[in-house]
């Protein structure tokens, strides 16, 4: 589903690259944690998958497409197959829960009929039934992140990218969010999640790829992250 082959990304030509000769492959339906301190290149990986950046060297294939060779007008179509969740939720404050999720469908031209069935379905999946008319400021952090996840997966993408999705949440709420993400993964969606949260990584027992200074230092299934690892 996602393949990086010897990928190097330098944001400026003289400095050290943000990602240096990184290779990995995630199969369809796999769950992969990306761990490592700040500046280790986790977010760069996410941005490269989203094709917000193109690699300086190396080759990235997402859902069978060589992203660097893709013409820019095709990029939106690549992104329709990828859901993305961030630490800061990124909801629209002037739209209610339903409209925030529906927004993602409106802008890709889905019909009103499709929207009226897809949105309640996905809100149920993330456990927000009955809160459709609430506005983001009326929701807790965990609920806001559920809305963001609902928006990311409402179009049933093959890939879910999560960049520190529990970074702003307390441990109990974080676990709820992980349960939601796990449920989405169980439907067959490939999940690539960057995180610092050792307790989550250790509890889940999934594949862990650790980056340090843009280089992969570890890739193992059932991996761990040392508690109190530096951010």
């Amino acid at each position, binding site marked *: 589903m996602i393949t990086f082959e010897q990928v190097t990304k330098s944001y400026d030509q003289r400095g050290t690259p943000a990602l240096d000769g990184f290779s990995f492959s995630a199969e369809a339906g796999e769950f992969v944690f990306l761990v490592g301190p700040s500046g280790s290149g986790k977010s760069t990986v996410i941005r490269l998958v989203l094709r917000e950046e193109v690699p300086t060297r190396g080759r990235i294939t997402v859902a069978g497409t060589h992203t660097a060779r893709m013409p820019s007008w095709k990029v*939106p*179509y690549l992104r*329709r197959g990828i859901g993305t969740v961030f630490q800061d939720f990124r909801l629209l404050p002037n739209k209610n829960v339903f409209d925030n999720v529906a927004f993602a469908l409106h802008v890709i031209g889905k*019909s009103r009929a499709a929207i009226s069935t897809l949105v309640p379905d996905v809100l149920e999946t993330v456990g927000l039934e009955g809160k459709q008319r609430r506005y983001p400021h009326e929701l807790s952090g965990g609920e806001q992140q559920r809305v963001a996840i609902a928006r*990311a997966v409402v179009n049933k993408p093959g890939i879910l990218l999560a960049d520190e999705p529990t970074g702003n949440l307390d441990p109990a709420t974080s676990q709820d969010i992980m349960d939601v993400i796990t449920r989405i993964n169980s439907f067959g969606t490939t999940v690539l999640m960057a995180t610092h949260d050792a307790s989550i990584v250790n509890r889940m027992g999934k594949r862990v790829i650790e980056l340090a200074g843009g280089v992969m230092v570890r890739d193992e299934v059932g991996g761990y992250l040392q508690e109190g690892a530096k951010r």
Partner: protein
Amino acid sequence: MKFSFLMSEVFSGLRRNISLIVSVVLVTFVSLMFVGAAALLQMQIGGMKDYWYDKVQVAVFLCPADSEAPTCSEGEASDEQKAQIEAALNSPDLADYVEEVHFEDRATAHRLFQEQFEGTSLEGTVPEDQMQESYRVGLVDAEQYGIIKEYFSATPGVEEVVDQNRLLDQLFRVLNIATAVAVGIAVIMLVCAVVLIATTIRLSAFTRRRETGIMRLVGASNLFIQLPFVLEGVLAAALGGLLSGIVLGAGVHFGVTGWLQPRMAGVSLVGLGDVALVTPGLILVGIVMAGVSSALTLRRYMKV
């Protein structure tokens, strides 16, 4: 792409940026008004040229009974003098310059006078026997007027040779200067409008960067993301164009048709029909200007 969703995005953008949008409307309105005024002035000149240049260009006025001109010492031009003048006009000497000649007798001159001043205080003030006979000469090249004037300067029976175009050319010169001034102001104002539209679109894109960021993330196409911004500018500019058309229409209706026309009888001035012809053009100029400037702005400031 869903039209209703697109339009709701456009109107929410218009609402959020209302003060800037109003300034875009006003600046395009004023700039397009000058464009329209220039166009109307040129239509006026064109209309007058069509009307007058088709008509006789040089009038060879014959001596009336009481003329004091030295060539009229024998009193009113005699039939013999007329025959000589007509022969001279048709002679090989002038064949290269003269295209056509016809005689205008008093009755025709009177009728034309009555037509020209119909409905004004001058109508009926000059009896037919006071009208002057003339030969109306069409020239091959209107600029060669001097040759005719020279040729008949000492011909008995000719009181005066008048180049009617010369009088008109003065007027045309004034109108052309007015056009140049209007175009100059219009160009400056249009530059202001373009810069203002670009700034407005940038600001609008900035205030909505959260929405556009999410749109990009969920795979909205560039066209879908950018179209609302372009349409905002285009709608504002089109409204400015429409306003300029309305104000020009009012100006022409009250100023030209209502005030100037009665004072310039015999000259056909621009009317509301001409404004109706110009207005769609003004709106189109506004739309194209706004569309191009906002599309260029977005290409620079809103990358995928």
